[in-house]
């Protein structure tokens, strides 16, 4: 009993404070999003969000209770169970917004993909903490395999945005786990280059006034295949050189070739897999005025809403873009826009600072932890929150493409809120016990 009490007294108050503050801001904004221009409240979303927040806080408290030494050995089972649930959802789930991503009874449903992130964090932490003496290469490949299963299932729902979140989780965790930096750099470079190659043909076609004479080499068949083939040839030669002479420049040539060829291949695959509306989102990300009434509408309205907020905002319930319904999805994807419109830079800055505070506390907890498993769990949660914030806030300001990833603690929706509160609960429990042996 005394240890339970100790858990609650040793808890990280900064994180709790930031989470509570964000949730209150979120509920107020969701309430505001439900009010029309005439001042009539037309949506009961805020009531549901209050209920979810209350239940979520209970979940968070429960998650702090078990000692991580106890549940680390069950990680694999939790992960396996979520894979099964994801597979079930894939085939028998409910279709919401075009993706078969929900399961539930009647009006109540959850999105298992949100919780699968946490299950994946747990199992990755267990594997990485137990495999410290293995080679970096092997650890990377196995870790990749662990995230690819849920990523594949979620992609097939299809929910592109949610499946992306697994990659930053992986990067944060293998970074903390001490994998060779070259591999982490490899993933980052490949990701960036893949994105660049994917938007390249769109950029040339829609943004550039006249097509260049050479860029088509990177995307038009068969030239792109020749290019990829040539790169692979150089790769093979360099790999042979490295094996024979052990000169490090051979290694870096092979490394660069692999990043290049891999990204080229991935971008060609992306153009086959991405739906037309997703391609359109990439185009309007580069220039929303190409389709101002269609795909570019959301971005333009969001930027206008934020920009018109000024230093201190238009005041609570006074936003024009939001209340006249110019701003779409104001309670979910674009919740930040309504906050920034009504509370101005001051409000937006406070939200940013609260997110930074949570991140900073997570980093501090990792440094103070002696247990490798626990520190990896915290790193995974940190990566997850980091990426959601990066993408959603960036999207609202028009500097990230639209992917439909919610802003944690603020966006309307039970599943993502519960999932992140659960994750925060784990972090709080770990931090409260860190000085016990």
């Amino acid at each position, binding site marked *: 009993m005394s240890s339970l009490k100790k858990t609650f007294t040793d808890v990280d108050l900064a994180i709790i404070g930031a989470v509570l503050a964000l949730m209150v801001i979120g509920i107020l904004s969701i309430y505001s999003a439900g009010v029309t221009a005439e001042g009539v409240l037309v949506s009961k979303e805020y009531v549901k969000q209050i209920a979810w927040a209350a239940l979520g806080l209970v979940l968070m408290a429960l998650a702090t209770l078990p000692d991580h030494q106890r549940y680390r050995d069950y990680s694999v089972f939790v992960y396996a169970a979520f894979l099964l649930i994801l597979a079930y959802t894939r085939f028998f789930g409910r279709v919401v917004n075009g993706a078969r991503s929900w399961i539930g009874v009647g009006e109540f449903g959850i999105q298992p993909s949100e919780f699968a992130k946490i299950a994946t964090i747990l199992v990755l932490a267990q594997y990485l903490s137990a495999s410290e003496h293995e080679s970096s290469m092997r650890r990377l490949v196995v870790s990749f395999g662990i995230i690819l299963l849920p990523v594949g299932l979620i992609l097939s729902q299809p929910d592109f945005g949610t499946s992306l979140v697994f990659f930053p989780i992986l990067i944060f965790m293998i970074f*903390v786990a001490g994998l060779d930096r070259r591999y982490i750099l490899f993933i980052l470079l490949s990701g960036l280059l893949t994105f660049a190659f994917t938007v390249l043909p769109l950029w040339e076609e829609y943004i550039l006034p006249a097509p260049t004479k050479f860029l088509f080499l990177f995307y038009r068949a068969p030239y792109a295949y020749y290019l990829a083939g040539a790169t692979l040839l150089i790769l093979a030669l360099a790999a042979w050189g490295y094996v024979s002479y052990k000169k490090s420049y051979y290694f870096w040539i092979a490394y660069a070739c692999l990043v290049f060829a891999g990204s080229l291949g991935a971008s060609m695959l992306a153009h086959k897999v991405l739906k037309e509306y997703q391609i359109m989102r990439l185009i309007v990300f580069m220039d929303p005025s190409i389709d101002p009434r269609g795909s570019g509408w959301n971005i333009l309205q969001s930027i206008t809403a934020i920009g018109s907020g000024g230093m201190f905002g238009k005041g609570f319930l006074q936003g024009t873009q939001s209340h006249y319904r*110019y701003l779409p999805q104001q309670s979910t994807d674009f919740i930040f826009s309504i906050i920034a419109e009504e509370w101005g830079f001051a409000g937006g800055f406070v939200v940013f600072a609260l997110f930074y505070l949570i991140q900073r506390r997570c980093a501090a907890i990792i440094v103070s932890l002696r247990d490798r498993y626990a520190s990896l769990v915290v790193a995974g949660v940190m990566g997850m929150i980091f990426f959601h914030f990066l993408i959603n806030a960036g999207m609202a300001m028009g500097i990230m493409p639209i992917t439909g990833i919610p802003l944690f603690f603020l966006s309307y929706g039970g599943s993502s809120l519960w999932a992140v509160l659960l994750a925060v609960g784990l972090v709080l429990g770990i931090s409260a016990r860190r000085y016990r042996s």
Partner: protein
Amino acid sequence: MNHSSANPEASPKRRTELLALASLALFLVYSAYLFYLQVVKGNEYRNKATTIARQSRIIPAQRGEIYDRDYQLPLVLNTDSFAVDLVPAGLPAARRDEVFERLAQTLGIPLEELRRRVPPAYYHLYQPIEIAGAVGYGTVAKIAERLDEFPGVSWHAKPVRNYLETGSLSQVIGYVGDITKDELKLLYNQGYQSGDVIGKAGIEKQYDLVLRGKDGREYRVVDVRGKSVDSGPSTVVPPTMGSNVVLTIDSRLQRIAEKALGQRMGSVVVLKPATGEVLALVSYPWYNPNLFTGLGAGNAYARLLADPNTPLINRTIQSSYPPASTFKTVLTAGILEEDAFPPDKKVLCQGAVTYGDRVFNCHIKRPGHGWLDLEGALAQSCDIYFWQVGRDNLGVERIVTYAKEFGFGKLTGIDLPGEIEGFVPTPQWKERRFHEKWLGGDTMNLAIGQGYTLVTPLQVADMMAMIVNDGVVYRPHVLKELRDPASGAVIRRVEPETILRSRISRETFAELRRDLRSVVTSGTVRFPMSTKAVEVAGKTGTAEVGLKDRWHSWFASYGPASGPVEDMIVVVVMVEASNAWEWWAPYASNIIYQAAFANQSYDEAVDSLGLRYLVPRQERQE
């Protein structure tokens, strides 16, 4: 490999500091950008948000017009008309019921219908919702005069299709309607949007993409409440009108064929075999496509759908029937080409033959046709001959092969939606379907076009086209060319496209043409095919469908029988057994040939053939 993790204890700590630095960088960069957006450029966005927003309005494109092959008078036009819109959020809640009632009354639509189109869930929307289409100028003027009594109501031009030629051509031209949710799902990627008008049948459906053109847009600047702000000239992207469609249909022939068929359930195909152009395509009963525009369209459509005579079905391509004796043409081709039975050798017809435990009766009962060779058997349409030679000499496999050679059981690929394939049975099919062996009796049924075989009138026309073209069939088509709506210049002309090229020899086809000619000169139709205007060759068919004194009546023919193929037309008339028995198919064909080649009107043709006693003068029933 492991040189980077030389100090394993210090590494995680340093790395975590790096992660913290990354989130600090993100925090700073985002804050700076937010500051730039809100404070540095704040005024710019504030102006944009509080005073102006761009709105666009669609200017509908004119749908292309449809002409017959002479490109003289349009068959379909667009009439000016309006659609009335309501912006629900522009209608104050207190006045909602009152305005709804007034709207329903002014527009002449039921109040429930209006409430269904604007459900309470839409009340806060700023997007205009179309509440009535095909509204006349007078009604719109009434609303415009008292606009203050209709808050939130606006209107836009929405041209309505006006079908000038409403007779049997309606089956070819089809009609248009508002796009449904299901259609939108399928066609969204082709640029269709909700509220679009789309072709639902016939040419309107087949060539919708070329007919519809491209909608234009007018951008105007409005304040946040949707009120127009005067800020210089508005930008207009003009609409592109759809292309004009010129059909291969010959209006004169179409009208003659329509009258020759009269009010009999059935169909007529007139085809130009040298190109595949369809000159006339009649299916009775037809419908008036103008019923689908305007108010009450749903009821009109429901009535047509429930009509037991299925007026929405184009019987030339969407109905299949037993080919009956017209199928003997296929057997004759097979017997000649395969040398399965000497054409000069005679078979005795005594009016009946016993096979298995069944008696098969020829259509001439005792004493029968007597001794007949192949030419005589085709001319007299003797069942006994084709039963015996088909079963014992040609055999089922070769009959099936030749049926397929002539294109039966396959789509002709005509450019009209909804064509069906018909059916050619095989022994394997029968065993799979009924678990029964294919028997000699089945072959006998097959040989005279009865039993399981089903063909469409257009397929029968293609069979005749193959015979006159020495084995080549061109894709039947009703589109002749597309023309630019403004200049009238031809954009695309449809060229003949070979769809069948038979390996049957020219000699066989020549012999077959001689035999088909004797059907008219000395065979079954020598009395009904009395026209002197042109030499006709062809084959009759009388299909038993289980009614005691009624049969499907076929006549598949071409003329001039000895002329060059460029001058020829193929005429197929099919009159269903549901009509009173008149053996009408050859008579109708007779009138069509007379009118077509003597350049007479329908009534002149009837009179000059002396058929007035059969057809009372009548006006066309719409």
